[in-house]
């Protein structure tokens, strides 16, 4: 092969390559449809955090049909691997990418700088940039309502709470639950057991069994497995799930669950990108925005309870009721939020103390 023909070949390849690149760049911008990418931290499974995000993705596809094409990557470890996956999605022509775990924060910001034309949405983080938004759900509003249910169902006035790690997010949930609980049943108390793991079915089950053995007749959880619901079913007491409807693990025991719904948000963001109106921002949506809902009630929840919960749900949605509206007392009885005041978002994000009604010390 002569040098000239070799050069021709190289030139041909360069031209072809450029044409492909133009096509690739031109594709998403010119066509009506866009490609939307999702990065999940765990397998989708059939319940839990990632499962709910995937329901949101399915809702996005069902609502916008041909206008969107979605891609997801599951079980992406937080850290170096995440950056590679996010970069790949951006390079493959996705114009909107949702990264759905806290640990993707720095990789998302980093890849965001490399692809300034792509819109990034990072769940649960606090770092934003020109093309990286953050979003989070006010799940504590749901926790408050499940507390109301627990307060009206319990006979022993002892509620068991299986929790993962003493970080503000979890403490906020415990406090909101306790506020809801005592709004209808001031004599009820919450016992917390920390299992030091987000996911360990065996240990979560033993923690629930322990709480039940000590007299709890309703258990709830801030961990990822369905084992606590199963333990409650086996022991003939009640359970409140988290993330997803867990009723099939405890048809009799399951009262309800706080569940996350991202579909509406995902549809809105995709529409904004297609209309060229997407802007970076911070969203913290709750019941009013449809991001938080209660799972269908179990057979043990009476119509009276449903009525009270519905009233409170409407009040939270309208803004008339706030789970942390003063007076809010801590465990010592000292007033932390005065009457007529409402806890600020900043204070809620940094929760480091228990409200009145939680038993035991918060681990430091």
């Amino acid at each position, binding site marked *: 092969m002569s040098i000239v023909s070799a050069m021709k070949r190289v030139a041909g390849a360069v031209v072809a390559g450029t044409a492909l690149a133009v096509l690739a760049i031109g594709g998403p911008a010119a066509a009506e449809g866009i490609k939307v990418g999702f990065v999940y931290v765990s397998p989708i499974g059939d319940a839990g955090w990632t499962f709910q995000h995937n329901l949101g993705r399915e809702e996005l596809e069902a609502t916008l049909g041909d206008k969107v094409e979605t891609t997801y990557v599951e079980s992406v470890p937080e850290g170096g691997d995440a950056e590679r996956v996010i970069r790949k999605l951006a390079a493959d022509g996705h114009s909107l990418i949702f990264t759905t775990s806290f640990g993707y924060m720095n990789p998302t910001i980093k890849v965001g700088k490399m692809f300034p034309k792509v819109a990034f949405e990072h769940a649960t983080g606090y770092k934003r940039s020109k093309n990286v938004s953050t979003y989070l759900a006010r799940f504590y509003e749901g926790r408050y309502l499940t507390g109301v249910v627990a307060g009206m169902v319990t006979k022993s006035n002892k509620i068991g709470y299986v929790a993962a790690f003493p970080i503000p997010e979890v403490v906020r949930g415990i406090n909101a639950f306790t506020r809801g609980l005592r709004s209808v049943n001031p004599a009820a108390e919450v016992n917390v057991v920390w299992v030091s793991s987000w*996911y360990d079915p065996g240990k979560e*089950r033993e923690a629930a069994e322990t*709480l039940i*053995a000590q007299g709890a007749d309703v258990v709830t959880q801030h961990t990822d497995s369905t084992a606590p619901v*199963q333990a409650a079913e086996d022991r003939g007491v009640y359970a409140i799930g988290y993330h997803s409807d867990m009723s099939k*693990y405890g048809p009799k025991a399951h009262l309800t669950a706080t569940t996350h719904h991202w579909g509406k948000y995902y549809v809105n963001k995709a529409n904004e990108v297609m209309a060229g109106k997407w802007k970076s921002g911070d969203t913290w949506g709750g019941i009013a925005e449809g991001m938080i809902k209660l799972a269908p009630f179990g057979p043990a929840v009476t119509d009276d309870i449903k009525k009270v919960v519905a009233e409170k749900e409407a009040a939270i949605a309208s803004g008339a009721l706030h789970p942390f509206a003063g007076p809010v007392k801590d465990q010592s009885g000292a007033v932390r939020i005065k009457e007529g005041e409402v806890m600020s978002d900043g204070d809620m994000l940094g929760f480091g103390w228990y409200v009145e009604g939680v038993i035991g010390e918060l681990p*430091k």
Partner: protein
Amino acid sequence: MDGWDTALAILVATIRAGTPLVFAAIGELVTEKAGVLNLGIEGMMLIGAVTGFIATVVTGNPYLGILAAILAGMATSLIFGVLTLSLMTNQVATGLALTIFGIGLSAFIGLSYVGTPIDGLDPIAIPLLSSIPVLGPLLFNHDIMIYGSIALFVLVGWFLFKTRAGLILRAVGESHDAAHAIGYSVLKIRYLAVMFGGATSGLAGAYLSLVYTPQWAENMTAGRGWIALALVVFATWRPARVLVGAYLFGFITIIGLHIQAMGADVSSHLLATLPYLATVAVLVIISRDATKIRLNAPASLGRPFHPTA
């Protein structure tokens, strides 16, 4: 008598929490006594757990599930056996690979079974004995796998130290060259020991997915295979100490949960660490004699066997 009830609940929960460790650690002890270090327990447990679960869903019979878990554990260990014994790959690297393989494969084959409900094994109350106050519910009202784990422990202790076959197995673990020179088939004995370890790891997994938390969820062993592995070493390859260590680990985990549930002011981080610290401390103290450790540790552990002549 509230105090009695609580104490009983703690002890029963201790047995439940310790049982998967007993299964996995006893099998690994036999494997290591034959001179093979298999770090793949976690992977074999997961494959046992998922296979036992699927077999139970399909046949509706948890006993067939247990059998399937045993066979699946053995089959998985056979992969390890072929690689390390016949092809003489590095045992540490192969064992680690087996764990990673088991995590991935179990997740893959269990995908459509996540969230399928099953009826777990019911406890079998032994007539008369189970009606003795306190002792009855503590010792004679368990499911068949817990009785089985105790039987397995007795059997392995007897086999290793009271039978000729056990002596040969230990000889292979001490000096495979000497055993080979006398005329024992080192490879055959090691294959059997590895497969025994696989079978009990499968049982440990089945205990988790059929009894402890009757469901299949990805990676549901949550590191118990590694704890079993550490127990064997800290118990200096003695079956009785393995049993003590497994129950001690379970006991301190459960006590920690009860202390928290009572609202005592103890750091949850400390309570989460305590089972590891206390188990290691107790086993180190009861096995503090350095000479005896050297006597108990299989001298050929982890070394590949090259048959000469």
